[in-house]
């Protein structure tokens, strides 16, 4: 078997190796060492992040399952619960965008149905370089088709997401996929290998040589020779996964199943030791029984393979036949490969020969965690300081407005979501294009709202505030459609955590997110960390993507962003202050990424309360929060979606006009409502303690914005609508 495996090449440190030897009381053999290598990789062990993640609030009266399982679960009443999780597939997507993104979607879907839930929606949060080079376009195009083809084939609607284009993501795009499922509380299953003597089965696809060391691959920086790491990229088989999904949901109904776990990163090694560890048991497996796709596979290859579309099922003893029967119906294989033991060891056999024997607790949870050195990076001071008097106020606001509207980060995302089947299963009541997607829950009056959010630029400029804003924006987007935010899931995309500056960003983002989650009562129930998003020594913006679910009690009271009726008044809930810090306006018009964005969580809470109460009372005809591009872009979007014009009249109160129109200050929601409901809105706002300001009227076919009596912008809505809609298509085709 050639030369001895070097633990350093597996990414283990001297200290970690020593710990392994001490734990075992002997030197591990090559296979054992490799199993430790993948399980103790950052991707599987969270060794660089675990201590920090403890900061997140994870409890709440609706939380049924917090972090630690395959996905989090939150109660939505009537015996039902929502299961959700978000996950990254950044590195594979950089190398093979189509398959990388597709298998990312496949992985997150398995995490959901592993819990016994029927997946009902997908969302995707994407980051690419600016849409200029052929390479970026190729990545973008491939990623979107990969997500589309996998989700569409599975019959799970992709109902929302976000995308940003910034140069820091040019070499290292981010591809985060979120999946949401619904389960009856009584049907929840967990990834536990309980019941000594129970058989352990592997089901689904055959095991091949693909993806060996994928977990380690995700735990290092992208480099020139990443292209060579061929096996880390796999081809997805959504049809297989669809069969697997249906078969798994069917076996879960049969009552034969004790525990179930998908085979993701670190394949069989991770699935077996994690399920055993959660139950406090051991598992014994025989790799020679694992059905294979290729001949001559070694125990090492079987244990480390990351072949997709497989699951590990722990079955009640004696009921294997029932499982096999159901899988046969779906033309799939289900094979018993081992059993649950009581000795706390993962024992791997190849026929009669024991080839590895490791304590599951150590393997699954024993990786020593570290708190890394943290230091505020030097760039922070430079970027936060910005002298606005050196930034000229534009003369032609029409031109600035049109330029902003056509910015890649602001224009319509239709080109993307038109490729996603967002309607299959006929639950999607609010389609992509609104602040959050809304799905009905058939058989009830309820609905759930879903969104993902994160402005990485804010996090770059001020990680603490950026983290707070990401959470606040997600919650606000839910509130805009009339949903009460319930819980969050997060995907933390950062650079190399060994770099003090990156670690500092990481810490601060988490602190900020935690504060906001506490303030807004949205505990974190699941998540994922993706480090080493760097190439050529440059890290991406800290990008802690927040996925959130909200509950709508009455789906007849949903609100959408488009203006509905001429004559309606337009009002801003929240203070109408500007705030150019970190804005898209500064980047697009002045070429600056600068400023110090911030948020006041108390004000945010009041604004959300006000909006939510107004939607409950049914007085709003539209609602849309102010985000990238500021107030005027927000109003333009509501005009475009409603197909009507608006007349806006603003008082600058001494502020710069560009700030008034394009500033991105937080905690603002623009609503429209009939005149006679304004009193009611004002009453609500007084009760919750926030401001409401009437700023205009829905009228005509033009968008007209006046500040301090001067008409700054006047545009035909049909005209801007076309520009806004077709922008990405024009860049791509």
């Amino acid at each position, binding site marked *: 078997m050639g030369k001895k495996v070097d633990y350093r090449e597996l990414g283990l440190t001297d200290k970690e190796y020593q710990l392994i030897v001490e734990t075992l009381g002997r030197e591990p053999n090559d296979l054992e060492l490799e199993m430790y290598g993948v399980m103790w990789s950052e991707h599987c062990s969270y060794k660089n992040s675990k201590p920090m993640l403890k900061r997140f609030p994870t409890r709440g009266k609706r939380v049924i399952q917090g972090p630690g399982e395959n996905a989090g679960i939150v109660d939505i009443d009537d015996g039902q619960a929502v299961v959700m999780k978000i996950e990254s597939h950044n590195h594979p997507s950089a190398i093979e965008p189509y398959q990388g993104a597709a298998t990312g979607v496949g992985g997150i879907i398995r995490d959901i149905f592993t819990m016994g839930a029927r997946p009902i929606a997908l969302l995707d949060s994407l980051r690419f370089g600016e849409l200029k080079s052929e390479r970026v376009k190729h990545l973008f195009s491939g990623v979107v088709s990969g997500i589309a083809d996998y989700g569409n084939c599975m019959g799970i609607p992709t109902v929302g997401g976000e995308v940003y284009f910034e140069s820091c993501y040019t070499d290292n795009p981010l591809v985060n996929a979120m999946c949401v499922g619904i389960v009856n509380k009584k049907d929840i299953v967990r990834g536990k290998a309980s019941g000594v003597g129970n058989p352990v089965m592997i089901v689904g696809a055959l095991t091949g040589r693909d993806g060996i060391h994928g977990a380690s691959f995700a735990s290092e920086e992208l480099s020139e020779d990443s292209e060579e790491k061929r096996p880390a990229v796999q081809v997805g088989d959504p049809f297989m996964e669809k*069969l697997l999904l249906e078969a798994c949901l069917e076996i879960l109904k049969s009552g034969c199943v004790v525990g179930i776990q998908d085979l993701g990163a670190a394949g069989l090694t991770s699935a077996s030791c994690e399920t055993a560890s959660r139950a406090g048991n051991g598992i014994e497996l025989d790799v020679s029984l694992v059905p294979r796709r290729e001949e001559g596979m070694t125990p090492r290859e079987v244990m480390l393979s990351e072949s997709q579309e497989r699951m590990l099922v722990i079955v009640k003893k004696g009921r294997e036949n029932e499982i096999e029967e159901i899988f046969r119906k779906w033309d799939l294989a289900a094979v018993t490969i081992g059993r649950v033991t009581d000795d706390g060891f993962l024992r791997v056999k190849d026929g009669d020969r024991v080839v590895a024997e490791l304590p599951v607790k150590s393997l699954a949870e024993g990786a020593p965690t570290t708190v890394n050195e943290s230091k505020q990076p030097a760039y922070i001071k430079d970027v936060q300081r910005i002298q606005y008097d050196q930034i000229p106020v534009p003369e032609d606001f029409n031109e600035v407005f049109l330029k902003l509207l056509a910015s890649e980060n602001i224009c319509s995302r239709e080109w993307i979501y038109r490729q996603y089947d967002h*309607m299959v299963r006929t639950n999607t009541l609010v389609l992509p294009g609104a602040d959050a997607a809304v799905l009905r829950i058939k058989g009830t009056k309820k609905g759930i709202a879903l969104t993902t959010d994160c402005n990485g630029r804010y996090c770059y400029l001020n990680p603490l505030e950026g983290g707070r804003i990401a959470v606040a924006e997600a919650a606000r987007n839910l509130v805009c459609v009339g949903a009460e935010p319930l819980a969050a899931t997060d995907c933390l995309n950062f650079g190399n955590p060994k770099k003090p500056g990156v670690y500092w960003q990481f810490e601060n983002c988490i602190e900020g997110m935690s504060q906001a989650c506490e303030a807004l009562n949205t505990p974190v129930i699941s998540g994922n960390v993706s480090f080493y998003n760097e190439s050529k020594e440059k890290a991406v913006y800290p990008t802690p993507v927040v996925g959130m679910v909200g509950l709508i009690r009455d789906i007849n009271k949903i609100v959408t962003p488009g203006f509905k009726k001429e004559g309606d008044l337009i009002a801003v809930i929240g203070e109408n202050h500007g705030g150019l810090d970190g804005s898209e306006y500064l980047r697009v018009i002045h070429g600056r990424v600068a400023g110090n964005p911030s948020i006041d969580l108390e004000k945010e809470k009041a604004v959300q309360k006000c909006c939510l109460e107004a939607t409950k009372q049914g007085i709003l005809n539209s609602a849309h929060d102010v985000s990238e591009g500021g107030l005027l872009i927000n109003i333009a979007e509501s005009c475009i979606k409603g197909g009507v014009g608006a007349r806006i009249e603003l008082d600058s109160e001494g502020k710069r006009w560009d700030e008034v129109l394009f500033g991105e200050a937080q905690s603002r929601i623009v609503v429209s409502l009939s005149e006679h409901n304004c009193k009611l809105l004002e009453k609500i706002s007084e009760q919750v303690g926030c401001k409401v300001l009437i700023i205009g009227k829905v009228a005509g076919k033009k968008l007209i914005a006046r500040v301090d009596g001067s008409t700054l912008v006047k545009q035909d809505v049909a005209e801007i609508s076309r520009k806004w809609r077709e922008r990405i298509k024009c860049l791509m085709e």
Partner: protein
Amino acid sequence: MKFGVVMFPGSNCDVDCFHVIKEVLKEEVEYIWHKEPLRESKRYDCIILPGGFSYGDYLRPGAIARFSNVMEGIIDFAEKGGLVLGICNGFQVLLEAGLLPGAMKRNKNLRFICDNVFVRVENNTIPFTLKCKKGQVLEIPIAHGDGNYHIDKKTLKEMKENNQIVFRYCDEKGEVSEATNPNGSIDNIAGICNRRGNVLGMMPHPERCSEEILGSADGKLIFDSIMKYLKGE
């Protein structure tokens, strides 16, 4: 009345069709598993081949599903005049099975398209469109990657003479043009029927717009037409 919804491995819209029949039409409906031969004793009044990705759309959409055990019975059922509705992937299966003429190619832009479109009713004399007016414009979603219908010129001419073109992509006013063709389909064709009119294949999804809360209930006209026909009203 009794409906059957075929489940192929990879069918996705089977549940959506089932839902409409059961909860919206309030009629009897059951699933038909692809592995089982169609039993005559079941006495279906209408069989739906739903959308989705049977066999992952591998090889060609519908190409493998058409060899399912159930298909022989369905062909027989159709030949005896039974109502067969193929939606999206179901339409593709009908083409591959030869129950309808022509074939599907990838969308012209090579991308999957999910969108609300308008179609014009060209033939309102078949069981599936009895309740529509000729020329009526329906707003109805499409969701497919292979909806680029192809047929040779000669057959197309015959189909027109036989009034087999049922739906064409148009704008909201009913104008049919290149600009309103989402996928490159020949002659903007969105749905066709056989000569006898008892087999309909359509790319748009009527089951996705049969309830007002979903934004449009135009699709319900198709199901209501079927009911009207079946009840002999």
